[in-house]
């Protein structure tokens, strides 16, 4: 059972990374969006493995349900999305790859070397009511600020994206 769980975890992790890679490298942007969906699903699965069921649900609802849909709308609304003649990467892909690789490998090396508090795995999962209480008590300010930010983003994007009458 444990072994199966481990296999499942690594499988989900590999799927996540594969989805991420697909997001980054797909020539067709629509396919990249599908890759992103895979990656997001994978992250939600990882959340489940870490016993954060509520967050996994939120991840699915917000990311896959809202943001990804928005992305696909954006892809549909802009031009030349699926043009195969377009290069997918720009000219600095070489050095960008090096830097990204150094960061990824470096971070991984540090993470693997460091001694983490392994016993933390024993903590029981947090019940959802706790989260709700935290949002409305200790994290209230951040929560309200976030709501303001969302309102600002809503109004601002409406303003930016509206059709200008002059043009």
């Amino acid at each position, binding site marked *: 059972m444990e072994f199966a769980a481990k296999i499942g975890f690594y499988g989900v992790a590999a799927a996540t990374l594969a989805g991420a890679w697909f997001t980054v490298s797909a020539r067709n942007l629509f396919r990249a969006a599908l890759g992103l969906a895979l990656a997001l699903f994978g992250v939600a699965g990882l959340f489940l493995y870490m016993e954060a069921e509520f967050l996994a649900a939120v991840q699915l609802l917000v990311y896959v349900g809202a943001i990804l849909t928005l992305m696909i709308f954006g892809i549909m609304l802009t031009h030349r999305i699926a043009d195969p003649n377009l290069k997918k990467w*720009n000219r*600095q892909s070489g*050095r*960008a790859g090096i*830097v*990204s690789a*150094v*960061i990824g490998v*470096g971070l991984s090396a540090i993470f693997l070397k460091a001694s983490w508090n392994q016993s933390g795995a024993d903590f029981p999962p947090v019940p959802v009511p706790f989260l709700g209480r935290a949002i409305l008590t200790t994290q209230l300010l951040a929560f309200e600020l976030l709501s303001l930010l969302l309102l600002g983003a809503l109004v601002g994007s409406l303003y930016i994206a509206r059709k200008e009458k002059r043009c």
Partner: protein
Amino acid sequence: MNLALIPLLPAISFVILILIGRRLGKAAPLISLSALLGSLVLSIQLFLQITASHGHPVHASMVWLPMAEQSFRFGFLADPLSITMCLVVTVIGWMIMLYSTGYMTDDPRYSRFFAYLSLFFAAMLTLVLADHFVLLYIGWEVVGLCSYLLISFWFEKPSAAAAGKKAFLTTRVGDLGLLAAILLMAKFGGNLNFGNWETKAQALGHLTPLVAVLLFWGAAGKSAQFPLHVWLPDAMEGPTPVSALIHAATMVAAGVYLVARCMPLFLAEPSALMVVATLAAITSFFAATIACTQTDLKKILAYSTLSQLGFMMLGLASGSAVAGMFHLVTHAWFKALLFLGAGSVIHAMHHQDTTKMGGLLKKMPITGATFIIASVAMAGVPPLSGFWSKEEILISVGGHLPPLFLWVGLAVSLMTAFYITKTVIVTFFGECRDHHAHAHESPWTMAAPLLFLSVGAAFVGLLGSPFFEHSFQHFLAPEETGGHSSAPAWIQTVSVLIAATGIGLAFVRYQLGKQLLPERMRVRLRPIYQLIDNKYYIDEIYEKIFIRPVAALGRLSWDFDAGVVDAIVNGVGRLTQVLSECKRQFDEQIVDGFVNATAIWTGRAGQTVRLLQTGLVQNYLWLAAAGAVALFFLIRR
């Protein structure tokens, strides 16, 4: 206060007219006329005040320069002498100004003319009312300026411009004498106020004759006495009212006034009086001879004015200020009238050549009649005014000067009667010799002054006659007894006879057309006639003696200027140029080199750094990431 207002009113009028006269247009004379009328009324009021107080002068003075021991004062003085001048100037001046409104009607610079006239009156009244030589000199000079401006009023005519220049320069030669006299008096004579003449003469000592002659020299310039008389005939280029006002009645009389004012100084020095008498006699005699030969109407009157001014000076030289002043007053009336009449004729005929006139009496009755009255007055027919003043002078001359001067005076009287009668006959009688002319009587603004002046020309002399108990003489100089007792008794009779002879000769020659001299004698006298007709060649002599050398000297100094002074200046300029060229090189090569090098290196550095600024967001992001990596390795070390 009233005293100062007399010259001030015309001055105000001048300021108004010169500033906004053009906008006033035909209304411009109203201002100058009313201003002068104010002066006239004030003068009459002063005159009454002085007569009421038996010649006690009115004096208003103010402090000019306050100084330690004695502050420098000057002001206005109205004594019988100056108030007489004042009345002559204002009364005759007002008439002439009224006349000018008609005479100058069509002139484009109408208001300008009245502005100049107002300035003239302001200056002239300052001159006669001054109680101080400096103030008198100021008026004297401004009057000369006005004379210049008015002679060359029609400066489009080259001859008028030249005449103005000539008048200005010639009178300036005379003014120099007056200035020298004033300076000498200021230095040695104590003060410059009028009065205290005995103290002044004593203080001057042996300089007295020099000062007196210099004063007369100034007076000669202004009153056109020989040898400074050359400007007056040319001054006839000006408008005729100007000739009447300035060059017959008032300004040229300023010299006579000056000598009369300084009479005590002359009386203290008989030799100076002899100089005055000689020059006056020369002027009077020669001008009269020239007047006989002239045919230009205004030139005749100009030489006649010269002659009469000489006559006044002769009267003064005989030691009688009263005689000279008396003739000045009567002369102002009849000569102004003569000029205005001549102006009326010229206005009608559009030329002034008497040989082309004739028979004008019928066409211009008022002008003709008044002209004849003035002529008769000047010829010396009793009881018109000229007779009384001329007789006064002749009596004084006969009583105090050598007999020669009396003979000259009588000869001048004879010639005066002759030439003025000739002029009248040629102009107003006989047949018209120019049939193109459509002569007509002048408008009332010109006729009214003629009538008024003719009354004065006829009767002013009576004030100095025995019928009025010589009231003029008593008013002017109560203490002067006059030369009646010492003069030969026959003078009065002879002067009447002489006037009659002159008129008769002219009548015979020009009305009846008979030659006065036998043919042989006329041929013999031809050169003399030529000499006189050319005004004794005095202008030509001056041209040779003074003008040519001065012009040559001027050219010489011009050459010096161009050759030497300019060369030095140019050399300095060239040197500066060379120096600046060196400095420019230094500036361009070295200073600018540093500046430019700094700029170039800054520019290159900017070009290099500029490459980082690609404008691509992802490029910046990459730099940030690479920077984070680099930082990580740096910190780790």
